[in-house]
């Protein structure tokens, strides 16, 4: 079967750039929905175990209308922004300091690896004593998660900027700060952004876990409280919203940021990669 024959065959099934190709990713979702609806109609399981699709839709609609869902979402997202914001700031600054001084980086490496291993939810029992149950606790857990990931990636990015570019700026009379601003920062940026993206992913998950264990409000807390009342419809609705936010965050926030910054400084990156 030659490659040409394959492509001819596929064009008779779907035109690759056509509507069918673009709708294909919706297929698994549609299948799950259909199986769910049919299964419920046929088996009628206990509503607490598995609610019908209609219940879940109803719950989302009702809670959107009376404002409860938006406030839960806002609470969770606020914590994420706070924790991730501080985490990114401290991670980048710390990462630059460590990246620029090799001895510092080597000394800190084992510590960073260790604290990354216990980052996030593992701090919860200890920090409940310090911060109590609430937003401060959740923000700490997120900061913790995001910081170590961003830190590691920033250090890597800073270290991988080729020396020759730095020296180029120096010979033109630029000082340390100028070097950092015009060479190292753009050069390290793709790594930093990878770290941010990864950190936000881990951070969102850690947030939900932290809210599950103890928080006054938020999506995680909403799901966990619903379990007490056996309201599986709320739980499933909550999970779907959590997943949607995760995807939306990645697709409509992080990827465009990545694309725009890398596209802007693309020239530096090419040289950076060649070394």
């Amino acid at each position: 079967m030659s490659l040409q024959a394959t492509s001819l065959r596929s064009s008779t099934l779907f035109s690759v750039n056509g509507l069918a190709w673009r709708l294909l990713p919706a297929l698994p979702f549609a299948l799950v929905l259909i199986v769910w609806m049919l299964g419920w109609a046929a088996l009628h399981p206990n509503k607490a175990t598995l609610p019908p699709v209609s219940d879940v839709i109803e719950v989302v609609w009702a809670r959107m209308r009376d404002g409860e869902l938006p406030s839960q979402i806002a609470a969770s997202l606020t914590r994420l922004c706070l924790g991730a914001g501080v985490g990114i700031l401290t991670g980048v600054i710390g990462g630059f300091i460590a990246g620029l001084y090799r001895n510092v980086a080597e000394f800190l490496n084992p510590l960073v690896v260790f604290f990354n291993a216990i980052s996030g939810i593992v701090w919860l029992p200890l920090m409940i004593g310090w911060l109590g149950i609430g937003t401060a606790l959740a923000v700490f857990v997120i900061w913790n998660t995001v910081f170590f990931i961003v830190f590691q990636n920033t250090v890597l990015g800073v270290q991988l900027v080729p020396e020759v570019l730095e020296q180029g700026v120096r010979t033109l009379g630029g000082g340390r700060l100028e070097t950092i601003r015009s060479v190292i920062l753009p050069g390290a940026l793709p790594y930093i952004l990878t770290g941010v993206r990864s950190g936000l992913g881990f951070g969102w998950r850690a947030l939900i876990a932290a809210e599950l264990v103890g928080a006054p409000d938020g999506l995680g807390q909403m799901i966990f409280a619903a379990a007490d009342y056996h309201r599986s419809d709320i739980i499933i609705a909550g999970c779907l919203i959590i997943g949607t936010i995760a995807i939306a965050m990645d697709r409509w926030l992080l990827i465009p940021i990545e694309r725009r910054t890398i596209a802007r400084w693309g020239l530096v990156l090419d040289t950076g990669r060649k070394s």
Partner: protein
Amino acid sequence: MSLASAPSVAAKSPGSASVLGGALQNLTGLRILLPFAVLVAVWWAIKAGGDFPDNLLVSPLQAWNAFVLLVSHGVIAEYASTSLTMLGIAAFVSLAVGVPIGFVVGVNRYAAHALEGFLRFLQGISGIAWLPLAIIWFGFSHTTTLVIVIYTLIVPILFNTMVGVRAIPESYALALRSLGASRLRLVVDVYLPGALPSIVVGLRLGMGYGWRALIAAEMLVRKGGLGDLIFGARTFGQIDRIMVGMIVIGCLYIVVDRLIIQPIENLTVARWGLLRK
């Protein structure tokens, strides 16, 4: 990924490379232990100097005593063993189920395209978010924990298997086919080695998510495991046990990630990853 791994970059601050620093660098063991020794010293200083009460922070000595006690009482051994066993079973099941499905899906371009978005969506819903539902279905039992961790592991493994298979140039498979290779040989000689680096990367990523999901699940299910240990100790305000538990959790994860999975990753990439690197 290590902080000091950039090979082609000369020392950024040559002035600070002291003789002592140079000598220390030759002793890898010391290089790893020294930062932790400093950390313990700082820990001790914070506790002693800051005059924190025992229900907020304990000293390294108190934590050590708690460790010895928990070991002699058999508590740490059993809880650590439970956690590691859960993780091991979940990894085994996830690989046994995820890799074959990933292959079957990855080979077909349409199936891969269809499933990609769905898998990303599932990955966004962390395993922990499903925990309340799993508790309703399976109660407070090891089954619940296992289901959650398997879910957490299987999504990245499946996804990465799919990606790994898709990345293999079709010419390789066609070349072997033209030599008369059977379907099975194709899988073993082309697809499996070709996708292996990606599969191991997926396993490593999954383990990062899965270990945390395991600890969180154990905190809520409370049927043993290190998560149960540190969360249970919270109820009694036993900060020394919490800190011991945290350290054990960190150490065990490092052993699994850096001494087992990362070397496997290096081996597969070096052996079969030449295509991409």
